[in-house]
């Protein structure tokens, strides 16, 4: 492998990792607020991409308007998902709730396949040209993923540390009962967290669409992002982002050198990390207070 190839793989890896990170940000938020691990987050991203595709291409509203509507529709979907389904399960065993999210994932994938078909569709985006510098060719769409991740992270950071709602959500995530007693509408805020998580997933869907095409198989990124978040440590956003970057960068190289297990290296890395450090690279306490 030549040096420029290596650089190219590295850049692809970083952008891929950022894509995972965008998804991970969404479910880590949801996890921190509700202790629910949303196995269906990859499906939310897929749904987001399909909605944008519908609005911008099928309805012909153009990319930007279509994206805005797509993201918004996912926000509504996320809100309803919590209000109608997840809220009923408060207090049930965690195990049951994971299984439920997996079941929701199955349904979303099947529904998407039935509505939009099982063959990949392409979404044309305004940033699809290639950039060349020093013998390295990289798609603008790849760069946009990295830029998008940084922008979204900053926006979310600002939202959670500066706005009233953001602070209220932080309070509710720390202690639901105490937040409730301080007149914070915990239920509604948690639904808002779901909405934000789903909207971030939709952005991830738009960003990833040009490099992967839009199809039901996209949802696999959700599981890889979960793997990344586990590698880095689920409890914190920076940890999850770091883990996703590690996975994203390692994947293309391992696929290149050892193609036998192509496509599964994200899981192999995660299993290896968990075997050595059962709590992930950045450990956190899960121990219950007695």
């Amino acid at each position, binding site marked *: 492998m030549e040096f420029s190839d290596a650089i190219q793989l590295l850049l692809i890896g970083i952008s891929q990792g950022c894509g995972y990170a965008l998804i991970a940000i969404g479910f880590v938020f949801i996890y921190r607020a509700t202790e629910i691990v949303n196995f269906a987050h990859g499906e939310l991203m897929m749904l987001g991409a399909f909605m944008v595709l519908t609005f911008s291409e099928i309805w012909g509203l153009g990319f930007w308007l279509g994206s805005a509507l797509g993201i918004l529709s996912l926000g509504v979907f996320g809100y309803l998902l919590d209000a109608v389904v997840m809220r009923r399960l*408060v207090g049930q065993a965690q195990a049951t709730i994971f299984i439920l999210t997996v079941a929701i994932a199955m349904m979303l994938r099947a529904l998407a396949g039935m509505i939009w078909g099982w063959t990949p569709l392409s979404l044309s985006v305004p940033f699809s040209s290639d950039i060349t510098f020093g013998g390295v060719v990289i798609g603008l769409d790849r760069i946009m993923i990295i830029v998008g991740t940084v922008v979204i992270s900053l926006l979310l950071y600002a939202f959670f540390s500066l706005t009233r709602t953001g602070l209220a959500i932080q309070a509710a995530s720390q202690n639901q009962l105490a937040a409730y007693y301080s007149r914070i509408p915990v239920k509604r805020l948690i639904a808002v967290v779901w909405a934000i998580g789903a909207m971030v997933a939709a952005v991830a869907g738009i960003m990833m669409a040009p490099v992967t095409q839009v199809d039901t198989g996209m949802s696999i990124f959700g599981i890889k992002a979960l793997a990344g978040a586990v590698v880095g440590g689920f409890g914190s956003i920076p940890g999850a982002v770091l883990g996703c970057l590690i996975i994203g960068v390692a994947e293309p190289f391992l696929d290149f050198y050892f193609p036998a297990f192509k496509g599964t290296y994200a899981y192999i890395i995660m299993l290896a990390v968990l075997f050595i450090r059962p*709590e992930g690279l950045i450990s956190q306490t899960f121990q219950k207070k007695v």
Partner: protein
Amino acid sequence: MQVLFKTNYDQDINYLVDRGERVRVLLALALALIAPLVVGGYFLSELTMFLVYIIAGLGLMVLVGFTGMVSFGHGAFLGIGAYTHSVLLGYGLPFFITLPAGALAAGLIGAALGRAASKMHGFYMAIATLAFAIVVETGIGAWEHVTGGHMGLSVPPMAAFGWEVTAGPLQYYLILALVVFCIWGVANLMRSPTGRAFVAVRDSETSARSLGLNIARTRIKAFFISAMLTGLAGGLLSHLVFYLSPESFGVNESLKLLLMVIVGGLGTITGAIFGAVFVSILPNLINLLQNFLPSSIAEAAGLEQLLFGAIISGFIMFEPEGLYGRWRKLRLFIETFPYYKRATFTRQKRYLKTERFR
């Protein structure tokens, strides 16, 4: 309703103390014994499949229902059992050696996974088992010169020293015997210290530890037993599908097993059996449903997946105790008619039970 006056500790240890229960179990057993005399061919092979799924479901029940650990990867153990059994059978070993060997292989790999998983927190474990299933599926596909890779592996006949168990009543009775043996064994475990340890670890890790249970050891044990049973089911399953390919033991198969235990009713042995019944008649139900749906929906690819998902979520949301729970309520309704109160089963209001340390 029969009121039991207990005069002996054995009445709490023995199963089937209740007369009605005894009658029902004997009836089911009698039906299972005469079934091959009444039905044949296709229906008998369906019944055999149902029996195999009982063993697999029992395996997953030990882990998910009794010990409270979620596995999204039990399809992999089914695969490990099936492949080990078939490959060894291909080398000419008798089936009564290869079958336990397949179970043991699955059990040991399960224990190894369990050793790593035992230190993990709930959902890390779930994700790890999911990743494990994907890796195993890929691994079976990549290990071509033994497993035949994605081309598949045709299963040799179930034979020992020139004697062969052919599909049909003989195979059916053999599997029935194994099912009864497994149910008996698991029921024994659940009424002894190990079974109680499983439940204790599920319900409160902290106090289980303070009472002297080694959490990691208990979990590894549960993983071992669970994977072994599922591996045994895999070995038996290979003779019903004739042809193994890695795709048939992927995540979808794992989810089907999970569907089975949830629909059946988590935490009971009867639940595993009810779940197996449900999974066995599900394809027929889907066929039936397709007749009523407009053809654009009925013929769409993915309908089965959609229904799988809908069934699991429906049960989790509306009847977390599964079919077994329904059956219990129905029985109580009939036994205590007209005094049945819906409130008997209403759960207390619950709050988010945090599992985090703050």
